[in-house]
């Protein structure tokens, strides 16, 4: 039986391509040859194309809609308005945050580019021609774009549909434009700590409205098969199962008659978590017309309607002793949610996990309150490459700690080291209620500071400032230090659900008779390389080479139920489910091996790819042999076959962390900030595939660069959206992007089956603070404590000007 060529243990391990190796990606063959299958690549017989008529104004009443001219365009098949959806009860839809959103504007428009009518035509050209000819008459209403004015007396009431509701999904509302107030921590104790503190630093830290802007926009193809009553929707869905359940609840189509398929997804970053009017309209159009209907948004529609992120205005007070020990943290957030509360957060967390805002520090008492308000802006509030509101929280605390350091005249690294949660304090319960699983912050920080020669950088900065003083240079050097703790892997069903669906995840494995396998998960990759990495987890668990394991996601008819991919939850939750399902396979395999080897189960031990008799490794059965036996032997007491499924409800979140250092040189005459160096140390627990981890860090840092240095979606006082195309919305090219230095420590999660924590979002969370801290640091010696992002040329120049640095002669040195 054991006739294979003897190979060494190491060779057998290598063959598996399991945990810890930089396995090349299996996805790449199709992508590098242009054979990916994204939603806009789908072409079905008879397929029509839908396109939206959108509101040109930010706030108004619809007086009339005339479809006639549009319907006369050759190729136009239908024009849907709210009045057409009303009989079906689909003119409004529930949002993930417990609010409702107009699918097509119902009497009122509440933000510029809001969906008003849906034109369905033979192709996208005819649809666009039809859109041009739908005549809509509006009555202008005063737009409300400043969240700080939303709850003023006399502010225009935006949401007339709920104007008199005093109770919202998250408690009482005290103004027609108020959505919720959410609190965490001990207000009285925190205010007491502030009152009695030796030092209190205050700052208003705004995190501007941005957008995840994946390179592929959102879209879908809906196809109603009238004969068997089944609705299939291919679309850009980060959570296909949740979409199926929601679709069933709102359309009343039984859930088994809905099939949601996420094909290849061209990046998500949170943009593709939500349910958008385009999906509903396409489905309705397909049901009504009996043919498939495709809807693909263009980039301007994407940036101005489907999802936004941040728009958090955070007022903080941080208390400390004179020698820099933090004693309390107080925070109030004004959250601009736009026209509908469509934030993608677990139900019980209307401000996401913002209460992770005590960060990496042992802060004895803290309090946070968040007020959500409506404005005439696009809805959204998604987690743009971060767990729910964690980037906002991390940015807030990392800025506040720097502000405090300035006030105390302490070094930013020193104050962090002084306040870190110590290694021996884990598991650590924060003042705002989270239980951090594991960490070793000092080691990470020390490694970072040493690697970049932090002392040397500070000495260089001192010399550069002196040279600037002497007029020898017009550049200022800044060093940004940031340390972050993420909270990812949502999450335990006891407190995490979306619309009542517990946030577990799943994996189902079938081992084939010849020893290869297929695994299906409830998540969906959008570039993270799940087909590569989850096969690695399994390879290590079940001893089948990764290359012999097919991984499938995204088809609700075949994949087990899961809550999808966002908030860095795939590895912490579905990755755990994968390991656990693998262990179930192994448990059965052990019984089969025992039968084959005629020993007791307990006499066997697992080694890489086989069970062997303890003390007699010559007597063994490989997984391949066991797989075959599972299908051809009648084993007493055992069912044939070798399959397992695991639904994993994580006992806790995971808490990845990292230390980032950014060095910038700022030209005070032009406001141009050059990123001289960026060092990122990440600790994401057990490392599954270092190559992929490094790639994730590069990408996340580049998104952080974009946010910190330029991204912004603004509205003028007339309610017009700005920053809605890639001319204005900053996506850095290879020229603006620096070369990244990456590093790591490895502190496994104690509660995750393989100790992994997740990494995709960490660099965005930590990166934004590091860039911003560096820019602020460049001016710190002149008394600057904080400037708002984005740190684009003109804002940086204004800072320099405010500090008196921009006397005229401005030639380059």
């Amino acid at each position, binding site marked *: 039986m054991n006739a294979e060529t003897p190979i060494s243990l190491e060779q057998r391990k290598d063959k598996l391509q399991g945990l810890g190796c930089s396995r090349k990606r299996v996805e790449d063959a199709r*992508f590098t040859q242009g054979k990916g299958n*994204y939603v806009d690549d789908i072409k079905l017989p008879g397929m029509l194309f839908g396109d939206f008529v959108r509101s040109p104004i930010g706030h108004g009443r619809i007086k009339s809609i005339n479809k006639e001219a549009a319907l006369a365009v050759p190729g136009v098949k239908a024009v849907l308005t709210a009045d057409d959806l009303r009989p079906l009860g689909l003119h409004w839809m529930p949002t993930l945050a417990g609010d409702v959103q107009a699918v097509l504007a119902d009497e009122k428009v509440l933000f510029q580019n809001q969906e008003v009518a849906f034109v369905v035509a033979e192709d996208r050209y005819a649809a666009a021609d039809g859109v041009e000819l739908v005549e809509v008459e509006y009555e202008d209403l005063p737009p409300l774009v400043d969240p700080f004015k939303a709850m003023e007396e006399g502010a225009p009431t935006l949401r007339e549909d709920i104007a008199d509701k005093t109770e919202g999904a998250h408690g009482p509302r005290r103004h027609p434009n108020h959505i919720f107030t959410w609190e965490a921590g001990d207000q009285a104790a925190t205010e007491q700590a502030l009152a009695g503190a030796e030092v209190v630093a205050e700052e208003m830290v705004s995190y501007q409205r941005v957008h995840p802007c994946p390179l592929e926009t959102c879209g879908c193809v809906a196809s109603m098969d009238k004969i068997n009553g089944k609705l299939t929707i291919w679309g850009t869905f980060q959570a296909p199962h949740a979409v199926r359940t929601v679709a069933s609840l709102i359309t009343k189509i039984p859930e088994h008659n809905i099939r949601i398929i996420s094909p290849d997804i061209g990046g998500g970053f949170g943009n593709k978590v939500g349910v958008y009017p385009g999906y509903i309209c396409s489905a309705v159009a397909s049901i009504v017309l009996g043919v498939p209907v495709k809807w693909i948004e263009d980039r301007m529609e994407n940036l101005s309607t489907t999802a936004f992120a941040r728009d958090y205005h955070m007022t903080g007070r941080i208390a400390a002793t004179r020698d820099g020990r933090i004693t309390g943290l107080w925070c109030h957030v004004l959250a601009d949610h736009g026209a509908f509360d469509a934030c993608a957060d677990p139900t019980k967390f209307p401000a996401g996990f913002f209460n992770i805002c005590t960060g990496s520090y042992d802060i004895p008492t803290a309090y946070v309150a968040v007020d959500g308000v409506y404005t005439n802006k696009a809805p959204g509030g998604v987690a743009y490459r971060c767990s729910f509101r964690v980037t906002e929280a991390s940015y807030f605390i990392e800025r506040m700690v720097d502000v405090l350091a300035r006030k105390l005249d302490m070094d930013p690294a020193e104050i962090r080291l002084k306040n870190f949660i110590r290694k021996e304090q884990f598991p650590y319960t924060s003042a705002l209620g989270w239980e951090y699983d594991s960490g070793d912050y000092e080691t990470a920080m020390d490694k970072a500071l040493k690697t970049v020669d932090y002392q040397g950088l500070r000495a260089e900065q001192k010399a550069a400032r002196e040279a600037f003083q002497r007029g020898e240079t017009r550049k200022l050097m800044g060093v940004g230090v940031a340390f972050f703790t993420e909270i990812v892997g949502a999450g335990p069903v006891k407190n995490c659900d979306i619309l009542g669906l517990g946030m577990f995840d799943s994996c189902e494995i079938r081992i084939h008779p010849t020893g290869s396998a297929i695994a299906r998960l409830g998540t969906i990759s959008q570039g*993270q390389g799940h087909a590569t990495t989850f096969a690695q987890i399994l390879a290590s668990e079940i001893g089948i080479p990764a290359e012999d394991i097919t991984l499938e996601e995204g088809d609700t008819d075949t994949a087990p139920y899961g809550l999808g991919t966002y908030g860095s939850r795939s590895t912490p939750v579905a990755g755990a489910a994968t390991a656990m399902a693998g262990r179930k396979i192994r448990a059965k395999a052990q019984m089969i091996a025992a039968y084959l080897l005629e020993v007791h189960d307990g006499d066997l031990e697992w080694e890489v790819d086989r069970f062997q008799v303890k003390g007699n490794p010559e007597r063994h059965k490989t997984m391949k042999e066991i797989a075959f036996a599972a299908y051809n032997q009648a084993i007493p007491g055992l069912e044939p076959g070798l399959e397992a499924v695991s639904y994993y409800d994580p006992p806790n979140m995971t808490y990845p962390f990292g230390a980032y250092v950014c060095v910038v040189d700022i030209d005070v005459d032009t406001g141009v900030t050059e990123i001289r160096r960026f060092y990122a140390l990440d600790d994401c627990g057990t490392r599954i595939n270092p190559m992929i981890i490094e790639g994730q860090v590069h990408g996340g840092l580049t998104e952080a660069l974009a946010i910190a240095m330029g991204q912004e979606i603004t509205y003028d006082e007339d309610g017009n959206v700005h920053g809605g195309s890639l001319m204005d919305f900053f996506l850095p090219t290879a020229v603006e992007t620096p070369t990244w230095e990456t590093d790591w420590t490895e502190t496994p999660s104690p509660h995750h089956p393989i100790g992994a924590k997740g990494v995709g979002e960490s660099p965005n969370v930590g990166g934004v603070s590091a860039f911003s801290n560096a820019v602020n640091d460049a001016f710190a010696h002149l008394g600057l404590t904080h400037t708002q992002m984005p740190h684009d040329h003109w804002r940086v120049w204004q800072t320099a000007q405010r500090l008196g640095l921009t006397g005229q002669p401005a030639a380059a040195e």
Partner: protein
Amino acid sequence: MSKMHVKMTVNGSQVEGLAEPRTLLIHFLREQLGLTGPHIGCDTSHCGACTVDLDGKSVKSCTLFVAQANGAEVTTIEGLAAADGSLHPLQEAFREHHGLQCGFCTPGMITRAYRLLQENPTPSDEEIRFGMSGNLCRCTGYQNIVKAIRAAAAEMAAGKEAAE
């Protein structure tokens, strides 16, 4: 406005079809010819996901009417592999050096890099970054793309040397 008869050479084959003159080249390639490798990312000629090679130049096919491309020679990502199916060194290098994640920018990225290496077979990293600056990627941070192009350039130079 009537449709026009369009003829061009795409990936070495003669193709023809009827199309409205306003049809964007990207739509003609994707929808009429079924070449769905090049993608639409921005609609405003900023992202480069729609990059194809047209008469020996890199162009953005979302900002070009099919009428303008009538009679042209077009190469898309689907035409880069050799006739025997072996991949172009750039396709190999992008995989080897993890130069892609979601894959959406990749066809445009590789097609642009293909032309860049024709224009400059031995680019420095800075020249690669400048030469690729018409292509946006949201996933990789470009570092591994630069690495992949550098590696492919070396591979192609070695191949050329071996052939000589």
